[in-house]
């Protein structure tokens, strides 16, 4: 008889125990009770064994893959689902983004889509029983010249028609919202106005990732970290399963949610996508007293800034100027960024940058995602998230889950199909997504 290693026994016992007790409900009362009694918290996730087959396999444990799995279980009762990641939960863009959430896009299709995500985010803390710290602090996109002011007006009108709170405001109003911004006429790039979007803001991305993972896990979804998909099996134009570094899995549906790595995963299935992977960098400063309420974006200066609840300033920019799968930061990024930020806020010149990092972005030609079916039956994509996909996690997960469960493409994502490129139906969002993610 072969012996079962102790670690496996321990793991099984642990997962059985948590299954018996059910998920720990997080609440203020529970916090006090556990504090008073010195009780530990149970583990948030189980570590199930990898099975040889699932009803659906989701590749990528970022916000998109996790949300897809969660809504499959929560909305459609499909729980025999695996989420596979070659690294760890939130190790891709979902743990590296600057967490800006907004819906003031440029096309009606885009605005409707992202608005649904904002609505889902508004209730997410309750739905997942996890504090996701969604802070709708207001979002400003500055215009420094007539042509960007014209784009702002255009966006405001498209937004209003879709019922989104969005308007163009002048320098006096801007300086009331952001007192430290240089709105003087002497500025090198004078501020002529801004697109103001009060419901826009930031969220705690790690909490969203962990919240979806915990909730999906409790509903019975298997999340397998450090499980890399190395082959996708296709027979007669139908997907039949995947190979991983931990064994083969049969599945009638495979969903690609790998963002920056999406081309490499599509290659395994023989599907070609119009994607180019670029690094995107961001940086934070040391924490200072809170002085900046809104998120401020300047397209012309290629920079945006927000302040976290801890007081750090978070800076971001546009993607690195050449494609790469490298996640190294670069000095030229920080140099350029600092120069541009100081054009906007000269008074923060003494602040020091604490750290910088990079993530991978799968850029599409029109700055809209690619979602839905592919020429391979059962092989679905939820990719093309570029620099703007974090905010779309909930709506994309909800729609992809519906597609997997019903086999029908939901209306809200029908404009984002892969076929649009061959058919010339691009959904151009560059004017709303190139710098302000």
């Amino acid at each position, binding site marked *: 008889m072969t012996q079962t290693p102790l670690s496996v026994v321990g793991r099984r016992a642990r997962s059985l125990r948590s299954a018996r007790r059910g998920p720990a409900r997080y609440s203020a009362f529970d916090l006090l009770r556990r504090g008073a009694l010195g009780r530990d918290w149970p583990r948030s996730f189980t570590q199930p064994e990898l099975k040889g087959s699932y009803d659906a396999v989701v590749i990528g444990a970022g916000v998109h893959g996790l949300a897809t799995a969660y809504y499959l279980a929560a909305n459609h009762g499909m729980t025999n689902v695996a989420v596979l990641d070659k690294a760890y939960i939130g190790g891709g863009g979902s743990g590296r983004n600057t967490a800006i959430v907004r819906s003031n896009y440029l096309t009606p299709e885009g605005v409707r889509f992202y608005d649904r995500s904002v609505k889902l985010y508004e209730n997410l803390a309750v739905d997942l029983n996890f504090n996701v710290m969604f802070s709708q602090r207001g979002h400003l996109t500055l215009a420094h010249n007539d042509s960007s002011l014209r784009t702002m007006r255009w966006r405001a009108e498209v937004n209003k028609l879709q019922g989104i709170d969005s308007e163009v405001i002048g320098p006096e109003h801007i300086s009331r919202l952001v007192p430290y911004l240089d709105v003087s006429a002497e500025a090198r790039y004078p501020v002529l106005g801004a697109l103001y979007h009060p419901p826009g803001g930031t969220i705690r991305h790690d909490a969203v990732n962990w919240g979806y993972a915990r909730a999906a896990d409790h509903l019975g979804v298997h999340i397998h970290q450090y499980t890399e998909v190395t082959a996708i099996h296709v027979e007669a134009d139908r997907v039949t399963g995947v190979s991983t570094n931990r064994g083969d899995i049969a599945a009638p549906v495979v969903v690609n949610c790998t963002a920056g*790595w999406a*081309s*490499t995963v599509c290659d395994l299935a023989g599907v*070609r*996508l*119009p*994607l*180019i*992977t670029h690094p995107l960098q961001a940086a934070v400063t040391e924490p200072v007293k809170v002085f900046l309420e809104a998120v401020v974006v300047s397209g012309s200066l290629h920079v945006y800034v927000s302040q976290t609840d801890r007081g750090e300033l978070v800076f971001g920019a546009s993607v690195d*100027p*050449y*494609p*790469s*799968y*490298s996640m*190294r930061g*670069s*000095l*030229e990024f920080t140099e350029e960024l600092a120069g541009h930020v100081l054009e906007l806020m000269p008074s923060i010149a003494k602040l020091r940058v604490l750290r910088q990092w990079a993530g991978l972005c799968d850029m599409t*030609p029109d700055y809209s995602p690619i979602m839905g079916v592919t020429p391979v039956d059962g092989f679905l994509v939820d990719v093309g998230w570029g620099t703007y996909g974090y905010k779309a996690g909930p709506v994309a997960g909800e729609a992809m889950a519906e597609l997997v469960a019903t086999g029908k493409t939901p209306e809200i994502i029908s404009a984002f199909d892969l076929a649009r*490129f*061959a058919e*010339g139906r691009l959904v151009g969002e560059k004017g709303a997504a190139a710098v302000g993610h």
Partner: protein
Amino acid sequence: MIRIPCPHCDARNSTEFRHVGEAAARPDPSTATPERWRAYLYERANPAGWTSETWFHTMGCRRYITVERHTVTNEIRSARPAGGTRAEPAAALSARGDAGSPDAGGQA
């Protein structure tokens, strides 16, 4: 910072260059179907590994060069004048009769 060994100017910081992209063969516009043409416009291999691509030395010699770069490590193993060789849209170039000329790689 990656340094690109320009065959005309020697190693220079990548900030001096403009990345033009993966070389893609341009179909004949008078016979290509719209699908074929759009595939040429949008589809890229986007490999995680070695790739052959065109760069333009904006702040140097202002010539196009062909660079072989590893997209995961950003290591560069060769850089040569663009034009008429394997990675180039040779058909388009030779149709104009200037294949092989270092200044002729702008089609990529």
